[in-house]
């Protein structure tokens, strides 16, 4: 598959790969929200973690791990870049179409951007849940 230069750049030099601790650690950390979306059988699993500065309400840091194709890796890498410094509301406003545009994702790879948006929302929902912040109709991580 012929990929655009931005996808290749993110695939070859992914930003913010990693996590803020093991699954068990993260569960007990109130300042971290985790989104785990996709399924191994579908060939894509994304894990996105946000670390929120609880004084300012801003996302201080974000990390990802992705099992998937080049576009899935690039989409999640880009998402972490965009999340840093944003407030929760600003993060909530990120749309998959912006990711498609920024990376010039080919049509067959649009689902990767959808998955990245899902991961962002799931991470935000997880953070809000941990901190007792009401979510819009508690929109679910999974669907």
């Amino acid at each position, binding site marked *: 598959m012929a990929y655009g230069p931005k996808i290749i750049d993110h695939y070859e030099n992914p930003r913010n790969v990693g996590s803020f601790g093991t699954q068990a650690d993260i569960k007990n950390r109130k300042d971290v929200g985790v989104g785990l979306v996709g399924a191994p059988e579908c060939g894509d699993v994304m894990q996105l973690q946000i670390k929120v500065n609880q004084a300012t309400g801003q996302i201080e840091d974000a990390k990802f791990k*992705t099992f998937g194709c080049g576009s899935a890796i690039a989409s999640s890498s880009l998402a972490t870049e965009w999340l840093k410094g944003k407030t929760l509301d600003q993060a909530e406003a990120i749309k998959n179409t912006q990711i498609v545009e920024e990376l010039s994702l080919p049509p067959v790879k649009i689902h990767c951007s959808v998955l990245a948006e899902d991961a962002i929302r799931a991470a935000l929902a997880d953070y809000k849940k941990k901190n007792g912040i009401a979510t819009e109709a508690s929109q679910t991580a999974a669907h």
Partner: protein
Amino acid sequence: MTKPAAPSSPIYMDHAATTPCDPRVVEAMLPYFTQMFGNTGSRNHKYGWDAEAGVDKAREQVAKLLNADEKEIIFTSGATEGNNLAIKGAAYMYEKAPAGQAKRGHIVTGLIEHKAVLDPCKRLQKEGFDVTFVDPPVDGVYTAEMIKQALREDTILVSIMWANNEIGTINEVREIGKLCKERGIVFHVDGTQWVGKMPTDVEKDNIDLLSFSGHKIYGPKGIGALYVRRKKPRVRLQSLFDGGGQERGFRSGTLNVTGIVGLGKACEIAMNEMEHDAARLFKLRKHMEDSLLKSLDYSAVNGHKDKRLPHIANISFGFVEGEGLMMAVKDIACSSGSACTSASLEPSYVLKGLGVGDELAHSSLRLSLGRWTTQEQVDFAIEKITFAVKRLREMSPLYDMHKEGIDISKVEWAHH
């Protein structure tokens, strides 16, 4: 003539898909394009005679490689045509009831055969023949016993590949042939991955029909041959192409003289060099498999440990996704395969059939070596693949979860 594949291109490790033409083959073919270009059917001038002489020589070269008689060689466009002609041709010839009726006869084949065998069998199934697709064992090797279990009173044909194209496993052809011979069942072998690489003797191996392609053995594309037994017993086929009656009526159509000459030369070279090539490639493949398995945990070689072709390695790597892996090893031209569904790669029915990697998300690479594969290329591939898998695992949430003791097959995933 220069050696194929410039070093600036990706290194070629996909010889099970196709091979470069041997320069000696190209050289043998060239005069037949421009000087000896006649139609072998032209019996009354030199151009026709020259072409015919070229074809006669090639027929001898092919026959010799198989220990067959020249009269038993039918030139085809390749193994797909050979398989179709052998399977449909034998089924229609030995049918127990005419078209339009059921119970026309029983055919036995394997579930992990090439599509060029499976699909003709499926067509015959629709036309009133019964077909048994025998499940493969975990190691991929079909034994005579497994085939024996599938035989019936009305079995007319058994079709089994000599070696599997994805995993390189070698089936018990000689023993299956013996079984068929005892029961008077026509035995077809798809020899595409075997012939020209490994010793072939249609007499000792008890084969009635054997198909293969030129382009897998350093010959040109668009040419192949089908061996059709003429004695003990004489095997008959209904032709698929009707016309000028070439190839003893089995295959009408003007002969592809350049292709045939190339195939003949390729067979002659194979005859002389296969032993040397096989020994060399076996060492390289073993080195590659051992090194990769040693440096990467959760990796496994697919197929039987020993009963495999010397030049094909099929290796699965847990917790990495197929397309991501292919992108990471783009300097190596090879094939991907996986029993898992990937977002963009079709799962391999062969690996699925073997039940490979059901428990962990994985990807597989088929690396097939050839006449010009060097130790340096193999070492490069080992280094590249090791690096790629490690890097992708660092990015893989599944690898982390597995290391933390989470069973990923038990996680409730959000399915799309």
